[in-house]
């Protein structure tokens, strides 16, 4: 992998560490209030300062990392599963099914992400009766992000499956009696896993961006949870007097997107060289 790719790997690892051990690194919990020391700028006790309720901004940003990354990784896993299944079936089923299936995907692909995410998560939030109230919006958002992200993966998988099914080894497997499920699961998918995983790695920053955008406009993550988008929106309101409040969550999003892009690009370049 290229040096830039390794920088990406290192940064993603550091980020995961902050997400997991944020409270311990900050020395205090993300929701501990200390009104007497509200809106203190960055200093030795709180090195990213405190917010309007005297909560430590570093601990809040680390907590935001946990929420943002959890949502992004969870929705990407969902998108990966849906995309591989849909694309695999479309690719194997032949033109009669393939055509209509891909048309449907084209429609979803053309609509703006955030629009579909907002509508889907509103509808899901209203219908997810089984999930406890506290987690319902979170679950709805993960499902909605996954429900948008699978489209690109399905297109990619379908194209790769169409290519692979012409290959001799697929023909050989079919001639010894492998059914469609076995053909896809045992023979085709393991052979096309590389580019699919590289595409999934690039879905993660897209999900981080979409989640923070939706949360920033107030339609995503809701209290008591806070993602970077929520923190940035809070900071935006007080931007003039306390710019550090928006600066730190913004930097966190920027660093995350950059490191995942570097990682994804590194993976892709490596695959291109191998293939």
């Amino acid at each position, binding site marked *: 992998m290229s040096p830039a790719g390794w920088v990406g790997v290192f940064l993603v690892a550091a980020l995961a560490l902050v997400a997991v051990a944020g409270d311990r690194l900050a020395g205090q919990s993300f929701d501990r209030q200390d009104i007497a020391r509200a809106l203190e700028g960055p200093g030795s006790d709180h090195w990213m300062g405190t917010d309007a309720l005297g909560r430590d901004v570093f601990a809040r940003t680390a907590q935001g990392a946990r929420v943002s990354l959890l949502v992004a990784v969870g929705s990407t896993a969902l998108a990966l599963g849906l995309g591989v299944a849909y694309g695999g079936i479309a690719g194997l089923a032949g033109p009669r099914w393939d055509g209509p299936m891909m048309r449907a995907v084209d*429609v979803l692909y053309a609509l703006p*992400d955030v629009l579909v995410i907002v509508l889907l998560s509103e*509808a899901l939030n209203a219908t997810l009766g089984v999930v406890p109230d506290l987690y319902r919006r979170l679950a709805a958002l993960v499902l909605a992000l996954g429900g948008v992200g699978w489209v690109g993966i399905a297109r990619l998988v379908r194209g790769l499956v169409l290519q692979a099914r012409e290959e001799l080894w697929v023909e050989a497997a079919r001639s010894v009696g492998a059914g469609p499920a076995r053909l896809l699961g045992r023979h085709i998918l393991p052979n096309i896993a590389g580019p699919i995983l590289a595409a999934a790695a690039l879905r993660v920053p897209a999900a981080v961006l979409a989640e*923070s955008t939706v949360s*920033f*406009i107030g339609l995503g993550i809701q209290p008591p949870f806070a993602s970077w988008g929520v923190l940035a929106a809070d900071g935006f309101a007080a931007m003039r007097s306390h710019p550090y409040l928006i600066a730190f969550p913004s930097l966190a999003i920027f660093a995350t997107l950059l490191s995942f892009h570097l990682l994804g690009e590194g993976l892709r370049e490596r695959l291109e060289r191998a293939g």
Partner: protein
Amino acid sequence: MIRYVAVRAAQALGVLWIVATATFGMLRLLPGGPFDREKALPPEIVRNVEARYGLDQPLAQQYASYLGGVLRGDLGPSYKYLGRDVSDVIAESLPVSLQLGAAALALALAGGVSVGLVSGMRRGRALDRGLVMLSLLGVSVPSFVLGAALILGVALYLDWLPGGLWESPAHVLLPALTLAALPLATIAQLTRASVIEVAQRDFVRTARAKGVPERVVRRRHVLRNALLASITYFGPLLAMLLTGSFVVEKIFAVPGMGRFFVTAVTNRDYPLVLGVTLVYAALVVVANLIVDLLYAWLDPRIRVRGESE
């Protein structure tokens, strides 16, 4: 070509019909009706209100009158802005969004294509590396971060340009720049990739082998074909601009459709939400149709493949 146009246009209409049906379905499925109050209204008033909005009729009839309304450009009354139709709200806010979008589109296309061409033609040089790094930074900055930075730096600190509202041409600059950044960087990446790809094609090698001067090879063969590919970004580009407009219109206090959409979702003003959705879908579908037709007109191979489908 005529057959191809007819097929694509029919498909576009079909997509719009599906979106309209889906929005109608969501409108009826979503709980939390428009007239839910803290205190329950007397049943006879609820009945009157439902009769006023046609909610007492059978579902099939409601669907028929909804579709009929959409065809006439009537998207129903807003639940929140009493006495105003969704169409009025859209008629007021859409032009603002279109102005902002057109400015951003021009910036993103002009900037992205030129950066991509320069970078792709000088592959591997210092200038190319710098531009690649710059576009990587560009796709990593969310619009609300860039917008906030511009408001703080250019509007509040330097006091060069207004940092909000929508009153004069100068008010367009900062939001348009914020909206254009992400698509500009994306287009630069895609254009660079397609220049590099085209430069390796056989017809470029043939042209060089014939002794065509390098300058002419680049302009005639590489540039033209790479630009042809850039037409295909138009659809995704529009989707990106629409997504960005939700945030940009909010932070710069621009009275466009994106901002109405956000407040309408918060207010559960579903007719407005779904009316705006329908307008967005129509914009995207029409843009994609134009792109397909333009592409088929410019590239006969697509036309032939499209007809045989």
